[in-house]
């Protein structure tokens, strides 16, 4: 067993634990923390996959910004309370489990069918190029210029949306006199 494989296995176990924990734990804060664990694990996997740049933004954006936002909202709303164990939708849980299991089996089966002929790995030279953030940056500003600009618009629209939804306006409407 190579070092790399060992690293992969450990991180994979951590990632799965994070995922399972997030789904299983009744407390929202716990779920969030487990998801954070999962994000960390995935960022490590990115590193293993020769993508240091993605490793960095996975940590800063996902684990940093997004998770903090989640936790912040959980705290703000006091929504961390534990869910009832009784489900209004009878059978939803079991159906979901069965469905997820089938989905998993299906995807794994399909990967087994097709993934058997592993193509040869890339040469070191290519790998070095691939893992260089400069390559990614250059691509972003040439081939992917258009999508890059659109991302900017999406962020703008997102900001506008958030402001609209949560801006406090002192009007009659907000005091609940209308509706």
């Amino acid at each position, binding site marked *: 067993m190579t070092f790399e494989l060992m690293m992969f296995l450990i991180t994979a176990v951590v990632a799965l634990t994070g995922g399972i924990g997030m789904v299983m734990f009744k407390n929202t804060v716990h779920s969030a923390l487990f998801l954070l664990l999962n994000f960390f694990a995935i960022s490590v996997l990115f590193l293993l996959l020769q993508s240091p740049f993605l490793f960095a933004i996975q940590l800063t954006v996902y684990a940093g910004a997004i998770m903090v936002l989640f936790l912040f909202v959980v705290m703000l709303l006091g929504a961390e309370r534990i869910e009832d164990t009784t489900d209004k*939708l009878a059978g*939803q849980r079991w159906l979901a489990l069965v*469905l997820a299991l089938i989905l998993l089996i*299906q995807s794994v089966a*399909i990967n087994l069918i097709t993934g058997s002929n592993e193509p040869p790995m890339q040469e070191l030279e290519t790998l070095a190029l691939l893992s260089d953030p400069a390559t990614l940056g250059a691509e972003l500003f040439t081939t992917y210029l258009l999508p890059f600009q659109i991302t900017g618009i999406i962020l703008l629209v997102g900001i506008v949306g958030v402001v609209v939804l949560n801006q406090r306006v002192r009007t009659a409407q907000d005091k609940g006199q209308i509706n």
Partner: protein
Amino acid sequence: MLELIWLIPLLPFVGFLLNALLVGRIGDAHTQERSAGYVAVAAVAAAFVLALVAFVQLGNLPEEERLVNVNLWTWINAGDLVVPFGLMFDPLTGVMTLLVTGVGTLIHIYSIGYMHGDSRVVRYFAYLNLFITMMLFLVMANNMLLLFLGWEGVGLCSFLLIGYWFERKSASSAAVKAFVVNRIGDAAILLAMMTIFLQFGTLNFFDMILDGAEVIGFVENAGAVAQQIVSVPGQDFRIGTIISFLLLIGVTGKSAQIPLFVWLPDAMAGPTPVSALIHAATMVTAGVYLIARTHPIFTDTTLGLVTWIGALTALVAATAAVAQWDIKRVLAYSTVSQLGYMVAAAGMGIYVAAIFHLLTHGIFKALLFLGSGSVIHGTHDTQDMRKMGGLRTAMPYTFVTYLIGAAALAGVFPLAGFWSKDEIVGHALTHTIPIFIILFLSSLLTAFYMGRQLALVFWGEQRDHSYHAHESGAVMWVPLVILAALTVVAGGLNLPGSHWLTDWLFPVMEEEAAEFKIVLGVVATLAAIGAGFGGWYLYAVRWAKRIKVDAKDPLYRGMGDIWDTMAEAWFFDTVYNKTIVPGYRSVAGFFAQVFDPEGIDGLVNGVGRAFGWASNGVRFFQNGYVRSYALAFFLGVVVIVGYLIVAL
């Protein structure tokens, strides 16, 4: 001049626009009513004059050139599918146009009197003009698609006009019923159009020049293609059979034949002039026109079916007409029955006779409906014949004209109905004996129920004195007199010996004149007079005392359930309910719901309820929980992926 035939449908359309947009905005209610009537009548009358001119001009052309195509613009040009917005004028279209605009004009005039004082009369005339437009599109279209536009358009106007008095619940549900039932037929026509296009690559009736290019027509080239055989698994069909079968379903809807005739009797909830125009003279004959127009595509297989459907409808409806109390329902079933004659005639391949009967029936049935309208008008909205009686003195014009119409319908020599019906019955004798027997029996019944109706309405004593009967005004009886006069002479269109109509329609139908069987003619007239007299005698003399308001018919005593069955027009659900034990309902709830006896009802509500049951099932999943939706989503994904894996 013939290039201007597009003016014929345009004029009523202008009338419609004027009435719909302008007239409602001027003056007081009285001015509005008057101007709406004048505009509408003027528009249709002008269309009639134009149609007459066009007709004469067509007659001046040599026989082989009597087909004019006028393409206004290329309606659809999508790949292979090239359809002009085009009208045509040929002998068949010519006579149909004259019937529609001619009878239409008279009924418009009559409406001025009949609808006097109605609060929405402007809208009424707008609808009526729109109907004429659509009907003209139907008969003048030079392709299936435009014909279908007219076909749907007249259905729409019929819907609007049946439901015109929408305050009455029966009117609005009858309107919906008519529309939905017709839609079943329309779906079949759509399928037929697709098949026609796939097989012939065109929807035009005849070859023509469009945008400088030669375009073929399917009627003209039907011969060879229609006989080709296609294999549906397990069975071979001729293409013509498939197409014509689909067309036939459409015909049974629009022309009220078995099994889709149920909407027509209910449609009598509309104003009586509407019944006369739409549900007797013009719209319901569209099916017969369609068969005549596309007749080369009909194969022997379908024609046999057409004959039987027509004949059976004639009989079933005639029996139903015998057992009605409502003056208009008698005429409604009578219309269904007479349409059966036309369809049967078309089925037997004597298209000229079918059209001949269509024309004469259009005239005398319009007369009868308008007459009944005059009766209803004069008796202050009474429709139950048990409440009438003895009206011949109070309403002399109506009585005389009604008598003429009834005699024509019964087939009494020398009125129009005699000649046209005799051609059909006479041909049936050489065609198939059972058909002949059915049709002959039906004509006896026809005479009987008309005799019964005359007796009930015009003879005896007035049985209900809550109203004072009076004759209608001149604006109403003058059209009656004109129609009565036409009824007397219309037989001349195709008299034995001259057979003008056969000759005139020869370019379209290519049919030889039928041989007149004098013996049959004599027998038929005598039988009709006998049966009519019988009906009259029983109800006016023999049982006169036993007819009371809300009483059962004297015949009911002898016939009981059979009478009920007739009164319900052998309605299939009645039969179901009589023969199938109630427990059956719980087993086959679905069918019980579809064939529910009460109601619009049976069909429309039944369908609604039956599907309501299914749709509640669908709604069960739409429970408002996002998680359920997500579950359905992933269920879909998993099932599809599973299918994929199994498929591999």
